């Protein structure tokens, strides 16, 4: 845990406020034995002692108001307020009045002895019983007419009227009282009450003495029902307080301890109720939020999106299918068209286009060749004819010559001829058959 740090002034102021807030400190009567009594000017400074405890006191202007019998060793009751003296860091009782106490020495001594005895018996080690929170019946052991009882009734009526108060009347003062108290307690213990209140108003040690009686203390110790004591005022402590299951400073306090505060209870009930309503609303809201979130997820995850994605994919596949088939058919169709062109321009088609022409030209050449040959030969023959004609031996006949033949032989000389020989004269345009009549030789 973190240490809180503060200055001296702050801590001192804090202490002052704590102490001054407590009403008990502001108006208190303290019992004790005076010691170190001295004056300083008009003011008295002293201490009150009890056992090993000590309280510093101051009384301003004490010379005018302090009882003259007071000196060291006197038992007194000093009333005033507890305050802090900041300059010294001490607290002290600022005393307004001092009353000289009776000498209760004897009683206190008896009380101390009893206390030690009971302590040694282990009575004070009693395990405290729990006080039920909602008592149905509250037993009150007290005097019928006491203020203490009335305070208890008044407090319970205000705080928790749902219960029943059972009064077990007893006298609380006097010598016979202790036995009466024990009887009342016993009756209360058997009454079926949820809690027993043992209460009495304030008083001197003698007034309250019955509550220090051993039989009373032992009865309280033995009680089966939880017991709350409220004896005297805040400052009064009796031995029953040590064995009570709860000790209240006053009867009103005892009533408060015994009962819950109805206002608080009502507040709690309303709180519980509104929390239940809120919890329910919250539960419904939460459930609604959860399922609305689920609904949004459901909307988001609805197959709509999946469907449209799948639809697209399917359509794509189908388009691809169509495209692929179109491609296949077109490809094959184009290949086929190419083959059609190949067929149209195949060798055979070329052949039937080209060959007839080639044949014709060959034929033409042959024809040419043939006619050339013939005409050439005709020409050479013509030349031959001409040259034959040029050497025609009968050419001179044209000029009037004649040729003489005898026996189909050319006669070139008169010799060999005789008279009456038959000769033929050949002229250009005919023959003359003649007879040699005379032969003349040239030069004779």
């Amino acid at each position: 845990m973190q240490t809180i740090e503060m200055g001296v002034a702050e801590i001192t102021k804090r202490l002052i406020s704590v102490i001054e807030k407590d009403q008990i400190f502001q108006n208190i009567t303290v019992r004790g034995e005076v010691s170190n009594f001295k004056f300083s000017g008009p003011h008295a400074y002293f201490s009150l002692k009890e056992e090993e405890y000590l309280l510093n006191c101051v009384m301003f202007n004490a010379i005018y108001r302090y009882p003259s019998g007071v000196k060291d060793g006197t038992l007194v009751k000093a009333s005033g307020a507890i305050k802090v003296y900041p300059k010294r860091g001490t607290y002290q009782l600022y005393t307004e009045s001092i009353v000289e106490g009776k000498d209760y020495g004897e009683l206190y001594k008896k009380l101390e002895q009893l206390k030690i005895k009971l302590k040694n018996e282990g009575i004070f080690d009693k395990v405290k019983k729990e006080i039920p929170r909602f008592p149905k019946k509250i037993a009150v052991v007290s005097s019928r007419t006491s203020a203490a009882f009335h305070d208890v009734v008044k407090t319970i009526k205000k705080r928790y009227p749902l219960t029943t108060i059972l009064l077990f009347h007893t006298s609380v003062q006097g010598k016979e009282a202790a036995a009466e108290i024990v009887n009342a307690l016993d009756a209360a213990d058997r009454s079926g009450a949820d809690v027993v209140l043992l209460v009495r108003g304030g008083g001197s040690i003698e007034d309250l003495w019955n509550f220090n009686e051993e039989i009373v203390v032992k009865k309280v110790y033995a009680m089966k029902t939880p017991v709350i004591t409220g004896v005297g005022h805040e400052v009064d402590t009796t031995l029953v307080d040590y064995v009570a299951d709860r000790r209240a400073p006053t009867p009103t306090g005892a009533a408060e301890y015994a009962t819950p505060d109805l206002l608080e209870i009502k507040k709690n009930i309303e709180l519980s109720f509104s929390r239940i309503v809120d919890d329910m609303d919250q539960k419904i809201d939460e459930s609604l939020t959860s399922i609305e979130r689920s609904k949004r997820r459901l909307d988001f995850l609805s197959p709509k999106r999946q469907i449209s994605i799948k639809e697209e994919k399917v359509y794509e596949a189908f388009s691809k299918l169509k495209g692929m088939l179109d491609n296949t058919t077109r490809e094959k169709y184009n290949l086929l068209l190419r083959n059609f062109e190949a067929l149209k321009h195949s060798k055979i088609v070329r052949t039937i286009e080209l060959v007839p022409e080639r044949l014709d030209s060959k034929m033409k050449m042959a024809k040419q060749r043939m006619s050339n040959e013939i005409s050439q030969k005709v020409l050479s023959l013509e030349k031959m004819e001409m040259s034959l004609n040029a050497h025609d031996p009968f050419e001179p006949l044209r000029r009037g010559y004649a040729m003489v033949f005898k026996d189909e032989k050319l006669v070139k000389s008169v010799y060999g001829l005789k008279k009456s020989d038959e000769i033929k004269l050949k002229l250009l345009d005919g023959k003359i058959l003649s007879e040699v009549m005379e032969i003349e030789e040239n030069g004779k």
Partner: protein
Amino acid sequence: MENKKVEEMSFEECYNELEETLKAMEKADVTLEESIELFKKGVALYKRCKFLIDSASLSVKEVLGDLEKEMEVDEDDMGR
């Protein structure tokens, strides 16, 4: 205690049951159906508590031996 009818419950039972009901509702694993049941029960308990408080009047009795005698308590009388 769960089986006792609300209308028969004492204030204390009723009050405790109301607290228990609230605690039960605030548990993490409570179902919607349980919530509603708890809610209805809570409301019934709340009504019962309110009824008991509203209709309460303190009874003061003096026990004398075996006798119980109703005491009249007048606040004015008390009034110190």
